[in-house]
């Protein structure tokens, strides 16, 4: 069984595939724990997982290039490839690239949407566009993904320029973990936002991967 990868490694380096399955999942490093948990729970031993560095989200245009390189590098070694990214701020370019490469990807705009369920998330959009979302991974990696890249460690006075239009932080919990709940509440306080926690589980990620696994 694969060792649980460290979050810092998933952020900076990603995760190399074990080359032990016939279908390759090329995923965002921020989804590694959840995909490995789904694999283990469902016995999907034929799915191999490669993760790209989660920090690519800081420059969404680089996601498209990195996914393309991964598909071209390893795709031929597998019977199938599935890209476990949503649009993720690429403005449709990732979808376009996947079509060119002949591979499928997760539906939806981003992980906040598919964790909550794309339909449910879209239905709430009109009332919730002032919400700032975090997932389990992002709560754990809050400093690496939010606080430091936004310069708030050095210039806390910039906080309201970034978050002044937001009203609340919604923590979409994949796992029911009180420690993460406490940390997420602290993240909300640091950003000056109200706090709300929702236990979403894996949402559309579970149904999508189940469909991929059953092929």
């Amino acid at each position: 069984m694969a060792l649980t990868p460290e979050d810092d490694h998933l952020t900076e380096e990603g995760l190399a595939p074990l080359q032990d399955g016939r279908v390759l999942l090329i995923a965002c490093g921020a989804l590694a724990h959840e995909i490995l948990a789904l694999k283990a729970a469902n016995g999907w031993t034929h799915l191999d997982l490669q993760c790209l560095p989660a920090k690519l989200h800081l420059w969404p245009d680089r996601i498209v290039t990195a996914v393309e390189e991964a598909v071209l590098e390893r795709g031929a070694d597998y019977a199938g490839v599935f890209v476990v990214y949503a649009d993720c701020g690429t403005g449709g370019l990732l979808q376009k690239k996947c079509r060119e490469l002949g591979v499928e990807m997760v539906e939806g705009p981003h992980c906040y949407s598919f964790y909550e369920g794309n339909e449910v998330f879209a239905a709430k959009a009109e009332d919730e566009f002032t919400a700032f979302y975090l997932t389990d991974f992002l709560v754990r990696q809050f400093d690496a993904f939010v606080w430091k890249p936004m310069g708030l460690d050095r210039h806390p006075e910039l906080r309201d320029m970034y978050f002044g239009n937001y009203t609340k932080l919604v923590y979409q919990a994949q796992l029911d973990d009180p420690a993460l709940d406490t940390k997420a509440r602290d993240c909300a306080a640091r950003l000056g936002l109200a706090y709300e926690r929702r236990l979403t589980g894996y949402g559309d990620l579970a149904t999508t991967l189940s469909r991929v696994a059953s092929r």
Partner: protein
Amino acid sequence: MADDDEIILSELSDDELVLQMHDDLYDGLKEEIEEGVNILIARGWTPYDTLTKALVAGMTIVGADFRDGILFVPEVLLAANAMKAGMFILKPLLAETGAPRMGKMVIGTVKGDIHDIGKNLVAMMMEGAGFEVLDLGINNSVEKYLDALEKEQPDILGMSALLTTTMPYMKVVIDTMKEKGMREDYIVLVGGAPLNEEFSKAIGADAYCRDAAVAVETAKQYVARKHNQLNG
């Protein structure tokens, strides 16, 4: 290199002071920029020269280094705050003394989207370049855009979106402008992180602007073209 603390701005020559202000803007030093602006004005500089040669030129360096990956968003925001403080002093003086007017722009973030950092930078740089800017803020419906266009009669409509889910709303606005027969009356510029040239063309905008500096240059080109057409 001398310690910044040792530099007395009022003892520098004009040329040295302008270069120092470029450095201070780059470092996001708001109080130094305010002091520099006041010194140049006291020395008889016109508000327009102070704006363009000290502030806009400095911010252009910041913009170029942001584009090239040397500076990042936090540093750009600090620089923008410093420039804004300088512009706050200059604005009433510009209104009194007059300055070349390049055109007028209505700008706002689209409905369902609250992100305004990029939009605010564009608005500030457009003002610095001599455009009159009416900023509609965030979460703008098609009705709000159209009301502003009819009331303000600008040359340019600027729309911004940060989210993949909200950027299609730009097409709603442009399609409504077409339905009402007013699309050709305005230059439509769009921007925001997930946008690209292809999207801009697909929705019927005139141009996609990848950053504030490009927005200013694109706006100048389109306005000049529009004026040439009117005069031709």
